[in-house]
Each structure stands twice: as structure tokens, then as C-alpha cells.
């Protein structure tokens, strides 16, 4: 039996995945790269990133301050050697994007412009109006079309990593269009599947952000690192959760409570609206609890006010925000304040990977949001993630290219059996399943609401323990799931059930990791342990899969180079 076979296979077609694929062929043009994505690459969730990408480009800025801001923002949970390498590469990658055609907004002298952003001490966030992710994704995707070595499998859903003798040698994927199960083999596999926001009910993330790569790696025996570190963005639109970019505050917008007061003066007096996301989100919840939020049909909210910026600035720098306000809220942000509240946004944690994206399983790499290379620690600074996708996408691509030049060819023999087993598993468990009464949508919704309630901005032991029980029950219900769609053609219900399986796994890891971290650090705020505890927890949590619902947790020291942990005040 013949399988599609590549030197490097990238799973995921967002910014990190495509950047990695290009890096592979630029490192060694003779390599053949496959790219599997469950959606057409330009649909990837990178497209929704708005504010910008951080890079040190100005003479008055320095690598050291970008590193310091990132490390302080991470509440000292970032690996400092990784951060230091990152800040040096980010400007090169931003220039590379410019050469590929990204329409970066410019200064009058024609150079790439920068804007202020939360937690950054100076202006260093490059932007393309307020559609930065959209422009970067389309630029890098369209650029990728010029490389004949990159062969895409669009709309193919990966169900399993093929691991043989401790080495990753490919994936099993369902071609959505035909329903066919394919084994796609490769000497190296790069996971770049993005985030997992749909584990929560109220999230900025798109429907496709279901933690696929995290669950795939976890099942293949790789640890998931720092999964309790879930970022809540302060400014999401009520009801939809649509992201209102931090650039709104960067450009000078105010956050006000129902008394019209810029309440952040009580929380981040020196930074005000440019404080880091974790602290501002907590401040908003605290204000809500004190009765100082607005009450709306979709819950409490605050005002994000840009009226004083004027129409010209808004149209130049924040046109998409105006569009979103008009379309989804029915307001004109030039004349009306924007209703916002904290919303789940980003997973700092992810697949345990080193500075080159390599995981402990040989041949398996990870980059972008699905990975944790140690950059973001307890709280990611806004605009570091697009840069992360570029820097670590490229680094991972280069590392994989080097690895495959000396890696052995993949033997087709065991693959056939693995494909057969995986096909049978999905057919028996789902496609040909006759019994069952639980609706996918109902389990998913219960999981999402439970996560919002139990693993939100503030956490407690009681809430997390309760959550573990609820997740256990949901896992049982998942066993009694009902499948209505037996078609092999574009079966989105099959995709939903496989995604739900992944998400339940990710939710479990988040919950158990959060329960065990008995301190408050970065985005992980425990009401019962409100202080940071460097003695015990200046460590990464690493969760490994067991036969039980609860993972086995290990801890690894954070690597500290030049920045000694200090109290984190803004």
C-alpha cells in the first residue's frame, strides 16, 4: 500500500504552520513538505488577530526591555533564554513579512510604524491597521503558493499521530470531502494547530479552535505544559465574545465603569489602560463584584471609550473596530462607547517543546499557540503571539529540516496496520454507532459553561474540584453519544465529535493543572492562594496522560538568566 509521503508534514495552516513550511523549503529546497489543515489555510484563526506583532525596530528600543517586559508580563514563568532568543529574531521576522508583502502601517518616512501595547514599556507593536492577523495570514499564505514543494491537504482532519518506536512518522487524517482515511507519512511532523478557546463558552476564539494538536500530542505521550495559564482578554463584546483589540487602549481608549470612572487607577495606576491583560481582567471582575459594572441583557460590562480620539484617528488606526461596532453591536464607536467584558482569549500553555520546537518524541515538533516553548509563562503580552508564530514557526521549520536530513526513511509496513486500527476505531465508535442518546451540542455546551464557571478569571479549590467531577460526568456522557450523520461526505458532525473528544481532554488537563498550582501567578488567580509562591511554584507544570481522567503532573524549574523574579507591579 502506498501512502502520501513527505519529508516534513505540518499540521495546521495558520501563521505558525505556514511560516514553518516555508522555513523548511528555504532551509533545504529539495525537501517535500505536506500541510494538512482542517480548514482552508486563510480560514485559520490567525485571521482574527487584530492589534499587532511586537518587535524591537526603533533605535530607542532595546532587546533587553522587550525581554524584560515579556518576562515581567509572564509573572516570571517564562524561560528567559527562550525570551532572549525570541526578541532578537522578532524584528528579522517582521522585516521578512514586509518583504513578502504584508501591508504594515507606516510612519511618514515610509518605515514600519509601531503603536503602544499593554505591558510594553515602549512603542514596539507593528500593525496593519487593526487587521494585523488577517493581513499577515493572507500574506504568508499567498506567499506559500509560490513554493511547489509545499503540497496542501486542505480540509483534512487529523485523528491520530503515528508513532513508531518512539518516533513520530506521520498522521492519520480524514479527507472531509470524500470521508477517506489517509495515512500521511513524514520523517518529521510539526504541530501548528492553534488554540483551544472553544473549551470555554465565552471566548474570542473561532469554532475551529479546539485544541486538536494539544490533544494529539498528549495522546502520543508528550506532556502539556502550563495548561492552567489561560488568558482572559479584558475587552470582548458581550454575547458574541468578539475581540475588541487591545490596540483600542494602545491608541488611547479609556476603560470606564458605570460611574464613568477610569477604575484602573486603583489597580495599575502607572499603566492604566496599558496594563497587562491578566491584571485588567481581574480588575474588571472585581469592579463587577463591587457593583460598579453596567448591567446589560448579556451580563455585566464596562465601557471602552474612544470618542475622544476622533473620527480621523479611528478610521486610520481602528477601522475594523468601527466596522465590528456597526455590524455586531449597532453602535458607531466614533460617537458611542463600546460595551466590553473579559473573555477567554489565549492559551499560554501547550505542547511541551524546546526552543527549536522539538518535543520529547523524536520527529515531533510544535509551534504557535498549540506549543509551549516557554515564551509566555503565566501571562502573554498582547502582540507577542503573532511574533511568536513567526519566530518559532520559522525556528521549528528549520529544526525539522535539519532533523530530516539525517532521519531514516519511514517504513510503510507498520503504518498499514495503524491506519486500519484507527479507521476501525472511528467507524466503530462513531460512524457506525447505532446506540446512544447524548447530543454532542449538549455535552459541549455543558463543558463550556462548566469551564467558564470553574476555571475562569478567578479560581478556587472548591470550584476546581467541582469542575473535575463535572468533567468526569461529561466524559461518561460522551461514551453514550448519539451520532446522527453517517454520511462519508463532509461529515461535520464526525468532526465535531472528534473535536469534543479533544476538548474534553484539554479541559481535564487545564483543571487538574490549575487545581495543583496552589498560588496566584499571571493569569492563574486562586482566591484561596492569592500570593505568588516562588518557593514552590517557580516551575512549569507538565501534565502527562494516564489511564485515569486525571493526568500525572510533573514540575520543571523555570530557566532564569538575567532577570531575577521580583514583585510584579505596574
Amino acid at each position, binding site marked *: 500500500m502506498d501512502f502520501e509521503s513527505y519529508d516534513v508534514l505540518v499540521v495546521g495552516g495558520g501563521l505558525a504552520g505556514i511560516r514553518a513550511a516555508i522555513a523548511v523549503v528555504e532551509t533545504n529546497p529539495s525537501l517535500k513538505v505536506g500541510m494538512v489543515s482542517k480548514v482552508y489555510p486563510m480560514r485559520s484563526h490567525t485571521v482574527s488577530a487584530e492589534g499587532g506583532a511586537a518587535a524591537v525596530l526603533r533605535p530607542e528600543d532595546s532587546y533587553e526591555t522587550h525581554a524584560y517586559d515579556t518576562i515581567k508580563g509572564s509573572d516570571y514563568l517564562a524561560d528567559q533564554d527562550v525570551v532572549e532568543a525570541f526578541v532578537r529574531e522578532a524584528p528579522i521576522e517582521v522585516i521578512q513579512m514586509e518583504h513578502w508583502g504584508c501591508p504594515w502601517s507606516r510612519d511618514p518616512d515610509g518605515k514600519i510604524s509601531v503603536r503602544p501595547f499593554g505591558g510594553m514599556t515602549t512603542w514596539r507593536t507593528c500593525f496593519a491597521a487593526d487587521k494585523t492577523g488577517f493581513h499577515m495570514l493572507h500574506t504568508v499564505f499567498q506567499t506559500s503558493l509560490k513554493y511547489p514543494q509545499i503540497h496542501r491537504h486542505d480540509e483534512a482532519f487529523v485523528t491520530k499521530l503515528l508513532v513508531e518506536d518512539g518516533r513520530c512518522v506521520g498522521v492519520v487524517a480524514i*479527507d472531509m470531502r*470524500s470521508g*477517506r482515511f489517509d495515512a500521511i507519512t513524514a520523517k518529521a511532523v510539526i504541530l501548528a494547530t492553534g488554540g483551544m478557546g472553544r473549551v470555554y463558552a465565552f471566548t474570542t476564539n473561532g469554532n475551529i479552535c479546539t485544541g486538536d494538536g494539544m490533544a494529539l500530542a498528549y495522546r502520543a505521550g508528550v506532556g502539556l505544559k502550563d495548561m492552567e495559564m489561560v488568558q482572559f482578554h479584558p475587552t470582548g463584546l458581550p454575547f458574541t465574545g468578539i475581540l475588541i483589540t487591545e490596540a483600542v487602549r494602545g491608541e488611547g481608549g479609556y476603560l470606564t465603569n458605570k460611574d464613568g470612572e477610569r477604575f484602573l487607577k486603583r489597580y495599575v495606576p502607572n499603566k492604566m489602560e496599558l496594563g497587562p491583560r491578566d491584571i485588567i481582567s481581574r480588575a474588571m471582575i472585581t469592579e463587577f463584584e463591587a457593583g460598579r459594572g453596567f448591567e446589560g441583557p448579556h451580563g455585566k460590562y464596562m465601557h471602552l471609550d474612544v470618542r475622544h480620539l476622533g473620527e480621523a484617528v479611528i478610521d486610520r488606526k481602528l477601522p475594523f473596530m468601527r466596522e465590528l461596532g456597526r455590524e455586531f453591536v449597532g453602535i458607531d464607536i466614533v460617537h458611542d462607547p463600546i460595551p466590553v467584558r473579559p473573555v477567554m482569549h489565549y492559551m499560554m500553555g501547550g505542547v511541551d517543546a524546546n526552543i527549536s520546537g522539538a518535543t520529547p518524541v523524536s520527529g515531533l515538533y510544535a509551534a504557535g499557540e498549540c506549543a509551549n516553548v516557554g515564551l509566555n509563562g503565566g501571562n502573554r503580552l498582547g502582540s507577542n503571539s503573532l511574533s511568536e508564530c513567526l519566530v518559532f514557526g520559522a525556528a521549528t521549520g528549520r529544526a525539522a529540516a535539519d532533523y530530516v536530513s539525517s532521519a531514516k526513511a519511514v517504513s510503510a509496513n507498520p503504518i498499514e496496520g495503524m491506519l486500519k486500527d484507527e479507521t476501525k476505531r472511528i467507524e466503530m465508535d462513531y460512524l457506525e454507532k447505532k446506540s446512544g442518546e447524548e447530543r454532542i451540542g449538549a455535552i459541549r455546551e455543558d463543558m463550556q459553561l462548566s469551564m467558564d464557571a470553574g476555571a475562569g478569571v478567578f479560581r478556587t479549590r472548591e470550584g476546581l474540584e467541582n469542575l473535575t467531577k463535572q468533567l468526569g460526568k461529561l466524559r461518561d456522557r460522551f461514551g453514550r453519544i448519539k451520532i446522527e450523520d453517517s454520511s462519508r461526505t463532509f461529515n461535520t458532525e464526525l468532526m465535531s465529535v472528534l473535536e469534543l473528544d479533544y476538548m474534553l481532554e484539554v479541559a481535564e488537563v487545564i483543571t487538574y493543572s490549575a487545581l495543583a498550582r496552589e498560588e496566584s501567578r499571571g493569569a492563574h488567580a486562586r482566591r484561596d492562594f492569592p500570593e505568588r509562591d516562588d518557593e514552590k511554584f517557580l516551575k512549569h507544570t507538565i501534565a502527562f496522560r494516564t489511564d485515569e481522567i486525571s493526568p500525572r503532573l510533573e514540575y520543571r524549574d523555570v530557566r532564569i538568566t538575567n532577570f531575577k523574579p521580583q514583585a510584579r507591579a505596574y
Partner: protein
Amino acid sequence: MSAETETSSRVATRTYKPAMPAGWWLRKGHYFWYMVREFTALPLALWLLWLLYEIQRAGRGPSGYYPPSSTPFVVFSVICLLFALYHSITFLRLAGVILHFKVMDKPVPSGLVVASQFGAWLVASIVIGAVLIGFGR
């Protein structure tokens, strides 16, 4: 009314491609006016052919000039005039879409471009009218 195709671009899966119904241009006002615009060219062409024939006859001197003045022809001519006006207006409006000038590094607004087109049209009409009337006297 329909065609079924086997697509070969990826895996052979049967797809269903509905054919465009003959009355597709009745589905939307926009489509309808587009068809009207395209159709106006037809009677206009007939009328112009007739005009050429007239001119050829007029070449024989004043005795050869006897334009038809029957009511149907006048009605036809009026319709052709309306069609010509509609077609011209849509064409001149198009200029606002296509032409992009910059004056002092600032793009000229398309409304101004369209207005200038209509202005030029008006001037040309007046000049031609004046010439014809002048010669006619």
C-alpha cells in the same frame, strides 16, 4: 436544468452543480438593469445603421433627403434616444470607477471624475448642437 460532475481536483466525489436558470436576470433588480443596459445597444445599432443609410442617401443632394416621419419611427427614435441616454449615463458613471488620478498626491474623488465626464458631455453636446444649428441656417 442541472449538471452533475465528477470533480477530479481531489478525491472523486459526486458534486451537484445547479445550472443557471434561463430567467436568472429576473432574480434581482441589479441583474435586470444590467440586461437592459446591454440590450440597449441592439436597437441603437439598428437606428444607427438606418442613419448611415440616410446619410448615404443625403449624399445625392437635398432631393435625396427625406427622413421618415411616421409615428412608429418617431416612437422608435424616442426609445432609442432614451436607450442611448441610459447607456451613456452608465458608461460615464463607470469613469468614476475606473479612472484614478492624483492631484498633489491626493486621489481625486470619483464623484468629481463623474461630474467632469458629464460636464464634458454637456459641453460637447452644446458645441455639436451649435454647429449643426449654425450650419442649418
